[in-house]
């Protein structure tokens, strides 16, 4: 492996990281929070100082292959959350490191699971930082760097390692331009959300934090009651629509921009995504109708919750722990569906689900007609068998890792629904599960071991397993073969 190159990227990224801390520092300055400001500046300058000696080492060659890119991505996703946890600890707002780490990992991976019992006690700077990590983590740290740094031909490797979905491609020839377009679309949509939320009488600071949370499909709120605090149908609808938009593959937005509407219409994943959303909302709406009495209200709550869970955001306007079992079961199932590939959302991804279902269909056809030639097709084109196999293997890893984590979590003895949904919610980057980790609860009661396992799950889920797993393969670190 080309270790000097990996190191070179790490040093570059540490520098970018230190710059990121200046934004929350500015927020603390505006609100006059001296402690928070000081802690952000300490971490920022610490990282900058660290990156200086690191930058002395120049890469011997610029050969980058898949393994280098995977290792770079994995290392970054360990370094950034650790650095992100430091301000919480230094300022004393979350005194225990494990808790701060959990919070920071949950932020960067856009999970939105918190260990805070009283969110409102945090300073503005910290609240902003939590939401800001969602925004950066949503589209990706490295994609951000690719958009900022001069273009290189390694860009696709890095993008592929960080972007979710079975197939990652570029929509313009240059990797850097693709990254710039991604962040532009992302930024504009976020600003639109802020404006729309402000129009609904949400204070500006709250709007910014919630918009970033929705954009990254994260889910950190700044009120103990979550979005329910505002109790406004308008805000609920804005956030529902925006969460759904951020759960769409960003290629779709690009296709819309260049006016290729027919291609958008042909996109199967988008259609399935919307159908699942509509069907689940209607079913849950009908199921909870007796609780809320009016059709409008039940649909408002059900649509919000379905969008929130499906896009793996994790905002809540109602405590769905109190809903009937049927609704809860649908929500749990949605946790496994996830958003579209190439979006900021996590989960298993609608695209993969479609491929698995089609592949299963092919399997049955083959049973009936052993000699028939069937291919998995997508939009009238045969799909690469490597992609289909990749999806199947991913499903295997996905199940295996989740089962392992559940086994460890079960040592805490908090009941089946809690353990199961905690792992599911963390692995799929959603945040709230059911029972003890429901939307109005938090993760503070777990033991340190469980918190670390859940933190790892979140990173595994965000990076779709492979980059982090590759770190544990010994041959990656060896010099020869």
């Amino acid at each position, binding site marked *: 492996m080309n270790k000097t190159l990996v190191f070179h990227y790490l040093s570059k990224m540490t520098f970018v990281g230190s710059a990121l801390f200046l934004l929350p520092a500015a927020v603390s300055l505006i609100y006059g929070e001296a402690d928070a400001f000081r802690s952000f500046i300490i971490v920022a300058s610490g990282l900058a100082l660290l990156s200086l000696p690191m930058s002395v080492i120049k890469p011997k060659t610029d050969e980058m292959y898949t393994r280098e890119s995977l290792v770079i991505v994995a290392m970054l996703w360990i370094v950034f959350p650790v650095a992100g946890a430091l301000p919480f600890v230094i300022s004393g707002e979350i005194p225990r490191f494990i808790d701060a780490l959990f919070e920071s990992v949950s932020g960067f991976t856009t999970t939105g699971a918190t260990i805070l019992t009283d969110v409102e006690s945090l300073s503005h700077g910290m609240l902003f930082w939590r939401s800001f990590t969602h925004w950066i983590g949503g589209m990706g740290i490295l994609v951000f760097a690719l958009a900022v740094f001069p273009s290189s031909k390694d860009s696709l490797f890095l993008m592929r390692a960080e972007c979710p979905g079975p197939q990652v491609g570029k*929509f313009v020839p240059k990797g850097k*331009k693709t990254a710039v377009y991604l962040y532009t679309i992302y930024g504009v949509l976020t600003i639109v959300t802020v404006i729309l939320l402000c129009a609904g009488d949400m204070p500006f600071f709250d709007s910014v934090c919630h918009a970033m949370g929705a954009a990254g499909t994260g889910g950190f709120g700044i009120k103990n009651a979550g979005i329910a605090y505002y109790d406004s149908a308008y805000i609920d609808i804005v956030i529902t629509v925006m969460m759904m938009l951020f759960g769409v593959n960003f290629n779709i937005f690009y296709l819309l921009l260049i006016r290729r509407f027919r291609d958008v219409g042909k996109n199967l994943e988008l259609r399935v995504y919307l159908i699942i959303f509509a069907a689940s909302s209607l079913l849950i709406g009908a199921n909870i109708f007796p609780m809320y009495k009016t059709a409008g209200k039940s649909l408002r709550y059900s649509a919000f919750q379905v969008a929130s869970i499906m896009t793996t955001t994790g905002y809540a306007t109602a405590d769905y722990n109190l809903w009937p079992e049927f609704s809860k079961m649908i929500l749990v199932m949605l946790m496994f569906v996830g958003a579209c590939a190439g979006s900021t959302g996590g989960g298993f991804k609608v695209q993969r689900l479609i491929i698995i279902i089609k592949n299963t269909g092919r399997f049955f056809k083959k049973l009936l007609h052993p000699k028939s030639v069937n291919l998995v097709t997508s939009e009238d084109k045969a799909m690469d068998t490597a992609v289909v196999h990749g999806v199947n293997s991913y499903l295997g890893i996905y199940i295996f890792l989740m089962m392992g984590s559940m086994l460890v979590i079960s040592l805490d003895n908090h009941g089946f629904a809690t353990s199961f949904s905690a792992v599911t919610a963390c692995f799929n980057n959603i945040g709230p599960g059911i029972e003890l980790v429901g939307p109005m609860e938090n993760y503070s009661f777990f033991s340190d071991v469980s918190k670390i396992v859940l933190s790892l799950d979140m990173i595994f889920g965000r990076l779709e397993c492979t980059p982090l797993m590759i770190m544990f393969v010994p041959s990656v670190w060896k010099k020869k073969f």
Partner: protein
Amino acid sequence: MKMAIIGNGKVGSSLAAMLSNEKHDVTVIDINSDALEKTQNTEDVMCIEGNGIDKDIQKQANVGKSGIVIATTHYDEVNLLCCLIARKLGAARTIARVRNPEYYKQIDFIRDDLGLTMAINPEGITADEILRVLITPEAAKVEVFERGKMELVEYKLPETSAIVNCSLKDVYKRTKVKFLICAVQRESEIYIPDGEFIPQAGDRINIAASHRDIEQFFRMSGTVKDKVKSCMIVGGGRICYYLTKALLSIGMHVKIIENNLTRCKELAELFPKAAVICGDGTDQDLLVEEGIREADAFVAITGIDEENIIMSLYAKNNSNAKVVTKINRESYVDLTSKIGLDCIISPKTLSTNAVLAYVRSLDNTESNIESIYHIVNNRVEAAEFKIRKEIPGLTGIRLKDLRIKKDTLICSVLRGRQMFIPDGTATIELGDSVVVISKEHRFSDIHDILE
């Protein structure tokens, strides 16, 4: 600029790499997904799988908005049709690879109707290159600049050369011949030498001078070789066709060895003056029988790199002939120069350079690149610029007072019809044509050479 390359073969992929390195937005179209996968992984380009002749695929690649579309599939007809469709969709310029001599012959006749900007004929270019080397047998490679007035010659320094172990300053002072050593490859290091540089035996040096001065240089350094009068060519493909035509026209004796009887008959009919032998060029007895020991030059241009290498080695060891070897795989070039074959011709590199020079010339309107060559395994670039306007900090200033980038050298100036190698007191004036040698820089404008 946005560009599309249809056909991701050897030339297509190396063009994709070079053009994307020069910050162009490149989209590659090919039917073969495996080849695309490789390009996609190693280059910063977008790849689209599909038939480039399909209008919808071209639309998907945004060909209509492209500045240049380059068609380099295996088939001439497909290339021409691709270009026609691209023009219909609105592409500004199209370049097609046309190999068939019959097509190429009449390309000027149909070019306008096809909307074709340029046709590249790799075999034709290769034959020209081989011809130049055969005319200057001491050289491993010859590039021509400034309308043929300046030559850039690559040459491996033998121990017997008079310039070995003298600093260049002294060499220049001692001789009357005007020449400039502008790039040196020693082992894997590349130097752009200054006056203090001391050449050693085994260095591969690049000399810039007029053709007459080059001859004088070889005479002076004591390494002059006899003029090539007879040439043995193994491999009767299209390069052979173009080469034989050119060699016969300057009165050389040509002997062609080719495996395929039908092709032999064709060649015999085309070139009654040449001797056509039907046989296996790797058969060493045959080579001896046909007089390899007496031939002045031996050109191995079969379709298989390995065969070319083996034959050339045999020729090198068993005769005094000037040996020219065609090699397509870039990775072989380094290896072969290690085992003593120094005159390597790669059609792929030649066609890539031809396209690249054209693309560069489009980039800038002020001072155009006239031609461009990659020398020393593509690591040094020689580019010819035309000075079309006064450039502050460059024109009218003595060269020794110029502040130009490191590892950059102004190696020749063409003023009016006079070519000269500039010294420190020379100046560059409006209307001059200048050749700049550079390492690790890619200039698209003469202005860029300034610090």
